[in-house]
């Protein structure tokens, strides 16, 4: 407004000064003019009008309003997919693709028949807006076409169009989100969610790939390698070669006549005999070539089995189409010479499984050795006694469970492993190993699982069945004795003591009605806290304990003033006092339950070793030594007590399990743990001798279940088990012929929730208990990767799980009629082991070797470790490989020394990859400067969970000439993903259009034209015009006046 005012002031000045200026000019130039009366009149008139108008405007009329009818336009977003599954920026006919899109969008807009704003956008992983697609050549090159982010572009378009009266999206895409054309249901689901409701209809124009829009020889077949399959696809007969099964599809432009393709894989020096697989529409196993029928566009091959014996961790796969298929077949093509008629991919090969065999028995188990030999797996046998030394930090070559794929435990008793802490840590590590994908196979009798067995150890958490508590049937009455350490070191740590009381209360909470309870405090003498009586509920128990403790605190205060603080817990005496509970019960006339439990909660930091030992002199004066574990063992064997313990660690809060603490970097936690561990070990020894288990400051199992004892399955044997003979587990096993009665049977069952008794026993209910004297338990609660459908899951579970448990020992002497000598059982065992081993290697290194447009060879490394291995660097080294000329049959020279362990000499090149965590990248430089073939060795370095340096190495042979260009689409001729596109169109209320025959629905877009809108005129410019008019008028009048004067 200030500008207007300034203009007005200026106009006013000029208005009045203009005649004077004019006169001045005339004077200067010496011109003299005439003046007429009419001019004067006109001028005066104009001035009057102008002044009037200015005044009017000035007083407020700056706007003029008018109501007019409203006209609306729809918004049409045309989205064109330029990802590499469809088009490549450098392809010769790419402009044609874009121009066709322009034409197509113009036709669609026209057919829609509405007034519209058309916006055009090309997209792949990113997107770019264009006024015409034909101008988008550079955009196609700039966008990363390796993948398509369909959901992002749709979301972006919807957001941009929000608020427009109507919006239509025209989507020109093939619906494939990766270059390989793999299905990506997640993407599609996201898009469907975005479009659901049909507010913005999508007209999908499916784009089928056209070879002319891609680079180079479009007639070459492409191959699509799926995710490595697990073993579920394998059947009997595949056990010898089961490790990497790659489903391979060949995609090819339909050929006018029958052709031959050759698939080769180079692993190490050797050319793999890959022709052990069959392709549909192709030749059966054993031929050298894949016959591609006339007109076929895809050839699906059965999983490709890679041999494991050969060296190297990478396999370079090549595929070539023979241009001159006659005569068929060419021997085999291993080393194609011309790079442009084949392509290759690098895939990781799984190593030979490594098996750790923890064997607690003495005599050898020939069966396991035999099975391992047959499977050709590497096995390392370690005795449990050796474990703490082998896994210790000061071990020269520490044994790391995670280096193995399968752990076999036979007849292992946790007590063999060493002290309590070692047991908890090592068994905790085994559990962690399983949780992270490792396999576990356990065989042993009920001793192995019951008391002093695995029942209360961390292993129990991964057992496929719950080991039944002894007497779990019928909710038994229990005599539960709680022994609370009230020595000064614990009593005067309120938070720790409080937690200790809670442990007792929580442990005793599930006691059944009629149980007997006694809780006494112990330092060097007895302090009865809860006298022996029937259990009155957990609240009453807690009140009693806390009241008694506060009274005890007063008494301790009195004693403190005498210097008689309570001593440390005399474990031996406490146990002796425990035993007196039986006499007390008799004296009080209470029914003594058969189930007797002791829970000792003591100060883990205060191992009173003096009180751990004891000596006495018998009535004959004979000196006798004794110690707490021995007394505990007598309590267990003679009086049926099961003794459990919880060792307290000073400080706030319970401790996590030992294994977690040792791998934690929390100094406080480790310190608490360290202080408490010595006392814990003492308590553990006592507990274990007493048939139970001890925990380090954690509440794990209620006392009723502590030290669970497995009921023996032999008691519940069923005479003639019947089998579901259709079950795939029995494929190839002569169940029918052999006669099932020869062995009492297998069952595969899981007692966990949702488990099924898979063998078809009529009317069987899991709660009936195990019906057979041999149970192969499998666990399908722990799923294998990759995920599958529910049906698939069960199917796999039926075949075996990562944890298999055999409820009988394999040490049965191997006599003729023994189990381990039974042929069916041997196959079953081999199968169970094969199923238990993990399918993902500890360090999976996905390697992508590509050639870019500069012809540089690029390496992308995707590292995945199943345990927290933190890589700090990867080093790639190139070594020369001397190769002979390929033989006539295409195979590399055979019989050459290819020992991988021999000194490879100096590397040709060595560089560090850049990246972090999972993704690492490197550039080998121009492909022309690389040797024809070289060995690539990748060395990964990093730290493991405990901060120790760890490294691994993988190597393989690379032939750079066989690398395909990164830009070549692998989804060639896959065609558009029509089902997804249809779903998409349907969800949005749109339709799928056929580009050849456009049938655009007319009524799709309705525009409402009945509205009105207000038009507003801004009169500020009129003011300016008026001023100019006034100036002109003034000029004229001055002109006239000056002329008149002259």
């Amino acid at each position, binding site marked *: 407004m200030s500008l207007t005012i300034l203009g007005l002031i200026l106009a006013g000045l000029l208005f009045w000064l203009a005649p004077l200026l004019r006169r001045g000019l005339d004077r200067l130039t010496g011109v003299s003019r005439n003046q007429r009366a009419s001019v004067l009149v006109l001028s005066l008139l104009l001035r009057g009008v102008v002044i009037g108008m200015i005044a009017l405007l000035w007083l407020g009329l700056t706007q003029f309003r008018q109501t007019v009818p409203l006209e609306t336009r729809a918004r049409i977003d045309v989205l064109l997919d330029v990802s590499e599954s469809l088009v490549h920026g450098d392809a010769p006919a790419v402009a044609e693709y874009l121009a066709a899109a322009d034409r197509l969008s113009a036709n669609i807009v026209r057919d829609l028949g509405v007034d519209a704003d058309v916006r055009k956008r090309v997209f792949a992983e990113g997107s770019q807006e264009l006024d015409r697609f034909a101008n988008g050549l550079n955009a196609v090159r700039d966008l990363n076409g390796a993948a398509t982010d369909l959901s992002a572009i749709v979301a972006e378009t919807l957001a941009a169009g929000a608020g427009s009266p109507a919006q239509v999206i025209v989507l020109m895409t093939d619906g494939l989100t990766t270059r390989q054309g793999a299905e990506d249901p997640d993407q599609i689901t996201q898009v469907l969610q975005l479009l659901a409701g049909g507010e913005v209809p999508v007209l999908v124009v499916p784009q089928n790939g056209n070879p002319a829009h891609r680079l180079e020889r479009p007639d070459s077949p492409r191959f699509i390698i799926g995710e490595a399959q697990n073993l579920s696809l394998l059947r009997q007969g595949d056990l010898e070669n089961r490790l990497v099964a790659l489903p391979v599809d060949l995609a090819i432009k339909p050929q006018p006549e029958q052709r031959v393709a050759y698939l080769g894989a180079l692993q190490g020096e050797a050319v793999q005999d890959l022709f052990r697989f069959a392709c549909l529409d192709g030749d059966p196993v054993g031929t050298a070539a894949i016959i591609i029928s006339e007109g076929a566009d895809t050839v699906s091959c059965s999983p490709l089995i890679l041999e494991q014996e050969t060296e190297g961790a990478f396999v370079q796969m090549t595929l070539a189409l023979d241009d001159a298929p006659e005569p068929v077949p060419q021997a085999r093509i291993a080393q194609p010479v011309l790079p442009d008629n084949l392509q290759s991919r690098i895939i990781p090969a799984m190593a030979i499984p490594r098996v750790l065999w923890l064997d607690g028995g003495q005599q050898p188990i020939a069966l396991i050795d035999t099975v391992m030999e047959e499977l050709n797996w590497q096995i390392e046998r370690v005795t449990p006694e050796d474990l703490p030394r082998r896994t210790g930090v000061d071990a020269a070559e520490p044994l790391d469970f995670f280096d193995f794929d399968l752990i076999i435990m036979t007849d292992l008793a946790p007590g063999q492993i060493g002290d309590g802490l070692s047991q908890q840590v090592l068994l905790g590590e085994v559990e962690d190993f399983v949780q992270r994908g490792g396999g576990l196979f356990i065989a042993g009798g009920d001793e192995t699982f019951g008391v002093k067995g695995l029942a209360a150890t961390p292993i129990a958490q991964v057992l496929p069945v719950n080991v039944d508590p002894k007497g779990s049937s019928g909710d038994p009455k229990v005599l539960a004795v709680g022994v609370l350490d009230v*020595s*000064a*070191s614990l009593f*005067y740590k309120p938070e720790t003591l409080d937690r200790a009381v809670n442990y007792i209360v929580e442990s005793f909470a599930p006691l059944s009605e009629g149980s007997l309870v006694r809780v006494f405090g112990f330092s*060097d*003498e007895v302090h009865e806290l809860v006298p022996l009586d029937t259990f009155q509920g957990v609240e009453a128990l807690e009140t009693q304990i806390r009241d008694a403790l506060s009274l005890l605190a007063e008494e301790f205060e009195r*004693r*403190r*003033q*005498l*210097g*008689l*603080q*309570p*001593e*440390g817990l*005399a474990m*031996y*005496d406490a146990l*002796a*006092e425990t*035993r*007196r509970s039986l*006499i*007390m019960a008799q*004296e009080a006339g209470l029914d003594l339950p058969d189930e007797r439990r002791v829970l000792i909660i003591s100060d883990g930091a*205060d191992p009173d070793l*003096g009180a751990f030992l*004891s*000596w*006495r*002199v*018998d*009535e*004959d*004066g004979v*000196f006798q030594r*004794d110690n707490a574990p021995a*007394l505990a063992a*007598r309590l267990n064997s003679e009086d049926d007590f099961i003794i459990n313990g919880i060792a307290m660690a000073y400080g706030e809060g319970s401790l996590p399990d030992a294994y977690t603490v040792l791998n934690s970097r929390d100094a406080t936690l480790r310190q608490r743990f360290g202080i408490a561990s010595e006392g814990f070990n003492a308590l553990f020894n006592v507990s274990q001798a007493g048939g139970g288990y001890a925990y380090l400051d954690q509440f794990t199992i209620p006392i009723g279940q502590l030290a669970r004892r497995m009921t023996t399955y032999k008691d519940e044997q069923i005479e003639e088990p019947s089998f579901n003979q259709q079950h795939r587990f029995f494929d190839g096993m002569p169940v029918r012929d052999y006669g099932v009665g020869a062995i009492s049977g297998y069952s595969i069952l899981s007692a966990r929730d949702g488990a099924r008794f898979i063998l078809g026993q009529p009317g069987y209910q899991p709660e009936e208990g195990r019906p057979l004297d041999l149970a192969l338990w499998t666990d399908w609660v722990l799923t294998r990767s990759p995920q599958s459908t529910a049906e698939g899951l069960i199917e796999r579970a039926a075949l075996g799980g990562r944890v298999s448990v055999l409820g009988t020992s394999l040490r049965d002497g191997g006599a003729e009629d023994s189990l381990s000598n039974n042929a069916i059982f041997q196959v079953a065992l081999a199968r169970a082991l094969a199923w238990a081993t993990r399918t993902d290697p500890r360090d999976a290194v996905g390697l992508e070797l590509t050639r870019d447009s500069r012809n540089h060879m690029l390496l992308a490394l995707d590292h995945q470790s199943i345990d927290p291995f933190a890589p700090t660097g990867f080093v790639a080294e190139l070594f020369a490989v001397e190769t002979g000329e390929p033989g006539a049959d295409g195979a590399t020279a055979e019989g050459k020394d290819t020992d991988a362990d021999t000194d490879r000499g100096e590397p040709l090149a060595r560089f560090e990859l850049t990246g972090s965590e999972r993704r690492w990248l490197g550039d080998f430089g121009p492909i022309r400067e690389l040797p024809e073939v070289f060995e690539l060795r990748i060395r990964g370095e990093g730290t493991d969970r405990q901060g120790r340096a760890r490294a691994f190495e993988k190597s393989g042979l690379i032939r750079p000439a066989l690398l395909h260009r990164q830009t070549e689409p692998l989804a060639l001729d896959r065609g558009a993903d029509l089902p997804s596109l249809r779903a998409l169109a349907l969800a949005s209320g749109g339709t799928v259009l056929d580009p050849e025959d456009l049938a655009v629905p007319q009524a799709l877009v309705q525009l409402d034209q009945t509205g009105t809108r207000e038009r507003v005129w801004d009169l500020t410019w009129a003011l300016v015009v008026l001023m100019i008019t006034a100036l002109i008028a003034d000029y004229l009048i001055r002109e006239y006046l000056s002329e008149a004067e002259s």
Partner: protein
Amino acid sequence: MAEPMMARHAFPLLRLALGGLIALVLAFGLLVAQANRAQAQAFDPQDPYRRVFLDMMLTFTSSAERSEDWTNDWDSLRAARDLQEELRLCGTWYRTDLVNHLLEIMNSNKEDTNLLVAVSGILRAAVAFSRMDEEGGKLSLSVVPDDIIVREDIQVLIDYITRYMGIEDQYYASLWFGQVLMPRGLAPPGLADNWYPKAEFLVGDLERFIPFAETAFDSDFLDWPITAAMRLRRDDLASRLQARYDAARPYNITKLLFLESPTARAAHCQGLLQGVRDRLLQSSQLTAQAEAASTDVRFASWTLLLCGQFADSRRSARKQAWFRQSQRCGFRRESANVTDFYNAILSGSYLATEQRKNGEALRSAFTLEEIVAEIRQVLYLDSFTGMGHINIVLDEDIAMYMKHLHGIPPELRVVEGLLEEARENTDLAVRAWRAALDSEELHERWVITLQAWVEAGSSRVSIIDATDSAG
């Protein structure tokens, strides 16, 4: 040309390896020594006084007397070294004094064979006495010529030996040394004025102690002269001594024996207990660890027992016993082991009585079982001193103090019977047990046991499962 080079290089390598090996051996030796040390420090109920020490001394002197010059004799040197190693592991000031003096004599007189033989004889006697071999010991001592015994260094040696025996509860050794040397006028003053009379009081003849009682009073005899006089029914002497005692220390323990009225005794106890409390509290403040035992509460349990604080007395006694047991071989690892045990037993029997009277019959029976187990333990320990304490416990602690102050409940009768049995007075033992039975107050478990004991005339019958009373 190459070979000499190699040799030159090889030599330092060899030396290095050797050095490493030696270091390894040394380290291993150190570890073994550490382990031995730990073992030696632990309380060993089967040799609580670690009498292996005496044997080592004797091994050394015997070896030395046979050799011409023991400082050049490998066996003797090794024996001497073993002795020093033993001192390092389990040395006390009185052991160290003894060994140092012995070595000095042996070294300065290494050519005087007669002297070496005499020293060996004296040690042989000491070893024999500690093994309760009175005759052998006296014979060994009798062949040592008087002129050697009177030598000043030998007098000091005997003084050190008897001091060692006295401190380590080997009362019979002191007694028999005294019996041999006193008549010959060869006893060193320490033996004559202290260890010998003490031994007469504890394990010898009270009549022979009395002459010393009066003259030696005010030394560290404490209340023994008074109780000895009372036991011999020489009340005038006892009263006289007590009067002197009262003048020196108003709050003394024996005064309780002269106070008849419970009120007066209670008043006196107040003073005694105050002293105990002060000492206990002081000691508890001295120590950083709440559970660490006090150092100077030696008589607390006894005073508490006399003044009727049985639970605290037992606690204190047991604590002392544990504390001493946990000590390394050193000062305060001596006789009090046994005394503390006996105190705990006496206070425990009254505690059992209290529990019974409070209606905790079963708990009382358990306590009594514990006590019986402890009696068996202490008798085992006391056997290493030749039952050096049992007389004072029976004849003085129970017969005088307990009877006078608290009476004798059936629980104490059980204890008394067991102790009398150990003193081989089976009749008295059975009488005590029968008295306990007659009271008809004990728990059924004990009634059964005592009946069996009385019938068998021995406690060597097991009725109750021994492990019930373990601990």
